[in-house]
C-alpha cells in the first residue's frame, strides 16, 4: 500500500469512525431520555456482542466441506463459554480461547 493510498484510507476511515463514536453521545447528552429509548439502549450490549460473536464464528456453508477442521472455532468457543461462565474474567477467557484453539489445531 502506497503512502497516497494510506492517507486516503486513514483520513476517510478515521473521520467516519470519529463521527460514529462522538456524534450520538453529543446529540443525546443533556436530554431527558424517553423511556422507550433508554430501554432500547439497554438491549444494545447483548445484541451487539451476539452479533460480533456470530460474525466471527458463523459463515454460511462453513461446515459443507466437512465438520473438521471447520468446527475448531466452534469447539474452542464452547470452551470459552465454560471458562467465561465460571470465572467471569476477560483475561482467562482470552487465554482459554487461544489455548484451546491452538490445541485443537494440533490434534
Amino acid at each position, binding site marked *: 500500500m502506497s503512502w497516497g493510498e494510506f492517507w486516503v484510507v*486513514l483520513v476517510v476511515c478515521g473521520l467516519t469512525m470519529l463521527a460514529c463514536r462522538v456524534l450520538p453521545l453529543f446529540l443525546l447528552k443533556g436530554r431527558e431520555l424517553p423511556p422507550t429509548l433508554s430501554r432500547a439502549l439497554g438491549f*444494545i450490549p447483548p445484541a451487539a456482542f451476539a452479533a460480533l460473536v456470530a460474525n466471527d464464528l*458463523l459463515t454460511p456453508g462453513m461446515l459443507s466441506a466437512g465438520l473438521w477442521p471447520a468446527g475448531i472455532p466452534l469447539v474452542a468457543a464452547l470452551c470459552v463459554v465454560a471458562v467465561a461462565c465460571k470465572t467471569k474474567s476477560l*483475561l482467562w477467557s482470552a487465554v482459554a480461547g*487461544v489455548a484451546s484453539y491452538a490445541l485443537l489445531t494440533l490434534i
Partner: protein
Amino acid sequence: MICREHIRDAFHAAVPIMLGYVAIGIPCGILCDSIGLGPLQVFLLSALFYSGAGQFMIPNMYLAASPLASIIASVSLVNTRQMLYSASFAPECQGVSKRLAFFFAATVTDESYGVSTAKFAEGGWSVDRALMVNLLSQSSWALSNVAGALLGGAIGIPLNIAAFAMTSIFICLLVTQRMTSANIVAIVLAMAGVYACKAVGLTGPAILVGALLGVAGAMAYASARDRRIVERSAQMDAARRADAVGVAGTGDGASGGAGAEGGVRR
C-alpha cells in the same frame, strides 16, 4: 479529578483488555507489514483510527485485491456499530465536561465498551476512570501493533489463532450479560441477522444489521409483554369493579375482599 486511586481502579479494569490487545495487536501489525505499511503508518492508524476489526480488515481486503473504495466502505460500515455504544453512554456523560466526554467517546472500543458498561452498572465508576481505561487500552494496542510491524514476518505466529483472542473476549462479554427473556430474544435475533446478512453477501453491514435486528426484536417482545400485563390487570380491575357494584347492592361490609376474589376467579 485524576487521582492515584482512580488511576489504580482504571488500571485494574484495563489489564485484561491490554493483555488481549497485545495478543491481537502483534498479529495485526504483522499483517499490516505484509502489505508494506511501516511502523509509523501502523502507529498513525492505531492512534487516529483505533479499531481492531478495522485494522485487521484493511490489510486482509488489500491482500484480496479489493479496490480502495470498497475497503473504505466495508470498514466504515462495520464500525457504524460504534454509534450504538456512543448513544448508550449519553446518560453517564450527563453533567460531564465537553472535553472529557469527547475524548472518552472518541476512544471507545468493543472491549472497553463492555468493561465500562459493566463498571457503570456496578456503580462507583466515573467517566474519567473510563477514559483512562480507554487510553491504557489504546496505548497497549498501538505499542503491540508497532511491535508487530517491526517484527514483520520474522516470527511465525498463526494469525487465525491469535485473532481468536478477540473472539474470546466478545464471547465472555456476551455470556456475562443478564440472561432475561428479552435479552435472549435480542441475542438469538442478532446472531440470526448476522448469519442471514452473510448468506446474501452483505458482509460489511452484517454486524450493524444483526445488532439492530436484535434490539428491535427485543423491544417488540418487551412491549408485547407489557401490553399483556396491562390488559390482564385492566381485566382484573373491571371484574373487581363489577363485583364491588354487585356486592355493594346487598349492603355487605366485606365487599372489597369478596370483589377481589371474584376478580381473580374470573
